């Protein structure tokens, strides 16, 4: 559209204040295009959301990790999800420092690729898996789990992964295998906290074989529909929802099947405070604080009373049978 030149002087001419600035007139097309694009964008976003609603809304920070809904009993809790910002800024990952804000601040030095996980020990087919092979090993599922930290706070996180049992079955455990040990990366170059003597590195955790084979035990590659952020244990971690959070080892490099109960890093450093099982149990207190209640991060108001912690973190129906007849005060 041509721009009509403005005549000067005559009566009935517009006041200078009524004239649209030249730049605005000339930019009209650009502006209209932008408005149209924005409108279309909103429409597209709404359309894309129909798809995303099936899973957790993606925060859009990291590459997507597609997953299907899970059919595992107890695999999806109905609690409100913790905000992605809280779940990625309030972490215990001592390889990057002991303060809960440290991992978000320092974990960018972690290189989650290339990455291999060695599955070894008492198995017929020991194998070193490349991360890409693991990503394709079984169909990814989204599991919405409660996460209860031994410190008395909790979150609800949509994880992406598959049952660890899939991997263990493939390597064919021998009859003598009774436990599974998990070893995390401990590289001073990538992890500044490893230079401190807080724990005996590398971080080690363990499960009884039947716990490791339980369908709720998740080998995890993502959260909130995306790959794991470094501070949450990229590129592959464990999530055992009925145990305190520290049992779910992060940035795993070795999975070893063994015949004797492994000593975890926390058992080694404070055996009276952290036992091998570490099941969430409101009746067994930590020596320094009560485990009867918890604060749900981002959910419970500052002055709200803390919520009661359920037995096995609410997964009693699924996992209580694993511990039938055991004195859980003795085996804490």
């Amino acid at each position, binding site marked *: 559209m041509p721009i009509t030149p403005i005549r000067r002087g005559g009566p009935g001419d517009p006041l200078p204040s009524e004239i649209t600035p030249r730049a605005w007139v000339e930019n009209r097309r650009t502006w209209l295009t932008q408005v149209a694009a924005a409108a279309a964008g909103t429409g597209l976003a709404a359309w894309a959301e129909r798809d995303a609603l099936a899973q957790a809304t993606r925060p859009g920070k990291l590459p997507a990790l597609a997953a299907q809904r899970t059919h595992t009993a107890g695999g999806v809790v109905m609690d409100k999800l913790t905000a992605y*910002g*809280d779940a990625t*800024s*309030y972490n215990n990952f*001592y390889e990057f420092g*002991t303060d*809960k*804000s440290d991992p978000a601040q320092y974990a960018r030095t972690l290189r989650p690729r290339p990455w291999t996980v060695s599955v070894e020990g008492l198995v017929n087919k020991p194998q070193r898996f490349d991360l890409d092979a693991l990503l394709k090993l079984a169909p990814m599922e989204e599991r919405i789990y409660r996460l209860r930290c031994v410190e008395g*706070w909790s979150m609800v996180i949509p994880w992406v992964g598959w049952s660890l049992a899939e991997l263990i079955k493939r390597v064919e455990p021998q009859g003598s295998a009774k436990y599974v040990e998990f070893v995390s990366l401990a590289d001073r170059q990538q992890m500044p906290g490893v230079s401190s*003597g*807080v*724990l005996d590195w590398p971080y080690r955790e363990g499960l009884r074989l039947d716990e490791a084979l339980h369908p709720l035990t998740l080998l995890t590659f993502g959260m909130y529909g995306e790959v794991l952020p470094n501070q949450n244990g990229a590129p592959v971690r464990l999530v055992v929802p009925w145990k305190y959070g520290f049992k779910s080892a992060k940035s795993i490099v070795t999975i070893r099947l063994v015949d004797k109960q492994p000593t975890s890093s926390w058992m080694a*450093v*404070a055996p009276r*405070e952290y036992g091998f099982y570490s099941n969430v149990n409101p009746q067994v*207190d930590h*020596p*320094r*604080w*009560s485990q009867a209640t918890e*604060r749900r*991060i*981002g959910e419970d108001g*500052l*002055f*709200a*009373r*803390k919520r009661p912690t359920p037995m096995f973190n609410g997964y009693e129906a699924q996992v209580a049978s694993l511990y039938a007849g055991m004195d859980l005060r003795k085996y804490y």
Partner: protein
Amino acid sequence: MTRWFNRLCTHPAAYPLMLLLCCAPALWLISRGLLNQLGANPAESLLRGTGLWTLRFLCLTLAVTPLRQWAGLTALARWRRTLGLTCFTYATLHFLAYAWLDMGIDWTATLKDLGKRPFALVGFAAFVLLVPLALTSFNRAIRWLGAARWRRLHQVVYGVAVLALLHFFWLRAGKHRFSEVLVYGAIVGVLMAARLVHRRHQPMGLNRKAA
């Protein structure tokens, strides 16, 4: 230098400025809380923040006498009471944060919790021991009690320091983060040692008075 410092302390603006500095950490915590900038777990931040400032003001209070005796900063003496009461105020806020944010003002649960956890009990004991000191902080109380008795009562603060350090040590024991505990332990240690050394260097006759 010393004279210059003592002069500065007696400046009319010094006292209001000092009060403002004492309130600053609390104002900082409150404003961060109102702006929702206390992180994912604001209750924990408030609990930790008030606790840490209690310990810091306890150290500052304990530093007054050695600095007066050793560095000749006599003008500091007028601030000892303010610093001590600030320490007590932060201790009160710390206890309230625990009883309210952590225990939900459930006194039976709080008592049970204190009975169960030496860590909490030691902190509570330190707080309780500060109460009589705060209550007898005004001039008339000193006259009522008599200087000697007042001084003996207020030596309880040394016990409070030990309990506070133990409380802090147990807090950090879980994560084996002892560096800060060592720093505060060293500060309190030096301040205590300075008192002992000073007392030994006093002539016999003055020994009683120079506590």
